[in-house]
């Protein structure tokens, strides 16, 4: 460390005449103004022609002092403002009131626009004669853009909220009459006196169509929630093996119609904390896919567990999915086969992946043997450790 005293700049005025001190102050003030970068500060003559230019003005408007001095301030105004005579109107108001403030779009040298906060002050001599104007301009483009972005975001969020609310109500309204239909049909099937076989088959078909409608309504609602982030998990502790067996049991008739045998193999109970309804939905979507695209082939569900995670493999003996499509099939409205062959929304695997990932797990396709689609789902034992929203 140096022991020398701190250096201090001393400005001295040996003969201290007032005029000299005043001149020095003026020079320093001029230097200060010319070095200010955040504000364009310049002077105009009484007609509005530019007389001085600082670093901030060059930075804001893009002109150098050589280019701009002597030009009229009209150059900075948009054609719309020029058409309504704004530059001269502002100067006239500054002359009349002493100063004028305005905000609006101005034009840079390169033709781009910026949002300017402008103050024009009239400079008059002791006799009240107009000597010119001082003009201070601040570029508020970023602030205005940030504000506009905030407004845009708020509007977008509101639109999403309204859409979500509408879809939720629409789903509710669609499900209500469907409930009446389903209950009546099921009630017919359960009548003790029974139905003749032809009538029973018709009612069963109607019931299945009703179930499909309910599933479609739910899927559409899910997709809305998944994409807007309003989808939430309600984890509870349960045995994954039991849940999978229950889903398969619900698919018994469906599998029979598809000519497929669905088998479940498990090493034993697989306890974990997951959202049971959502996990059942994943299994449902995968089974629906297999029975649709691999009808007539066996579908195997194999459950395995480690200390940290549970794994479910779903395999069928169908045509499988080309490796080049393994990522695409998990996207919204995508499918491995052309739409003319199979109907559906193309949302089952997308929804499955979103649910698995919300549990902190992963779902992917894998190769096992020559044919068939083979899905592997890995779930951490607790969804609470996942990225559930």
């Amino acid at each position, binding site marked *: 460390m140096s022991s020398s005293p701190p250096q201090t700049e001393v400005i001295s005025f040996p003969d201290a005449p007032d005029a000299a001190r005043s001149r020095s102050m003026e020079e320093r003030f001029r230097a200060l103004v010319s070095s200010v970068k955040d504000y364009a500060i310049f002077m105009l003559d009484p007609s509005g022609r530019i007389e001085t230019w600082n670093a901030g003005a060059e930075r804001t408007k893009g002109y150098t002092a050589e280019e701009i001095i002597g030009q009229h301030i009209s150059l900075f105004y948009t054609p719309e403002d020029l058409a309504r005579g704004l530059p001269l109107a502002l100067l006239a108001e500054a002359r009349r009131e002493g100063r004028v403030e305005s905000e609006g779009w101005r034009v840079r040298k390169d033709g781009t626009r910026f949002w300017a906060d402008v103050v024009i002050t009239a400079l008059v001599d002791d006799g009240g004669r107009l000597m010119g104007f001082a003009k201070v301009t601040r570029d508020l483009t970023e602030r205005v853009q940030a504000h506009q972005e905030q407004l845009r975001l708020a509007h977008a969020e509101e639109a999403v909220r309204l859409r979500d609310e509408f879809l939720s109500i629409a789903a*509710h309204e669609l499900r209500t*009459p*469907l*409930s009446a239909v*389903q*209950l*009546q049909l099921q*009630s017919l099937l*359960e009548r003790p006196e029974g139905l003749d076989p032809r009538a029973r088959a018709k009612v069963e078909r109607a019931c299945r169509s009703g179930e499909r409608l309910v599933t479609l309504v739910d899927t559409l609602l899910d997709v809305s929630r998944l994409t807007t982030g309003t989808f*939430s998990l309600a984890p509870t502790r349960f045995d994954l093996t039991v849940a999978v067996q229950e889903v398969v049991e619900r698919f018994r008739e469906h599998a029979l119609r598809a000519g497929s045998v669905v088998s479940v193999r498990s090493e034993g109970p697989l306890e974990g904390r997951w959202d049971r309804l959502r996990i059942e939905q994943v299994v449902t979507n995968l089974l629906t896919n297999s029975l649709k695209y691999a009808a007539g082939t066996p579908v195997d569900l194999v459950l395995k567990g480690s200390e940290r995670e549970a794994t479910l493999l779903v395999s069928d003996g169908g045509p499988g999915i080309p490796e080049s499509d393994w990522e695409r099939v998990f996207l919204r409205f995508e499918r491995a086969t052309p739409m003319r062959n199979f109907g559906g929304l193309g949302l089952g695997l997308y929804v499955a992946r979103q649910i698995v990932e919300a549990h902190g797990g992963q779902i992917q396709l894998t190769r096992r043997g020559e044919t068939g689609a083979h899905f592997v789902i890995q779930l951490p034992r607790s969804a609470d450790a996942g990225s559930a929203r």
Partner: protein
Amino acid sequence: MSHTVLVVEDDLDIRQALLEIIEEHGLSAAGVGDGAAALAFLARAEELPCLILLDLMMPVMDGATFREAQCRDPRLASIPVVVLSAYRDVDHHARGLGAVSVLKKPPSVRELVSVLRAHC
């Protein structure tokens, strides 16, 4: 308590279907279209129902308001309530209302019957 199930549901078709199914399974059933009508029914019932199937979204008095009034009345508070709703994410709400179970619309007859067997 009796072997009567009170169905509180504003949709007439659903209510009628539920009443029929309940009766076909050997119980008696009564139906009303909103929470206020349910309170009126319970106020004059000599025998209280063994179970209330409660829709949530109803005109006049919704399911949640009915449930609050039911819980405040010591005579009615212990009647188990099963929430019946077309909203899929209703579980949390139903738990908050102290429902013993939730049936999502459309419920399957099998689910309905298992709930009836558990409580009546």
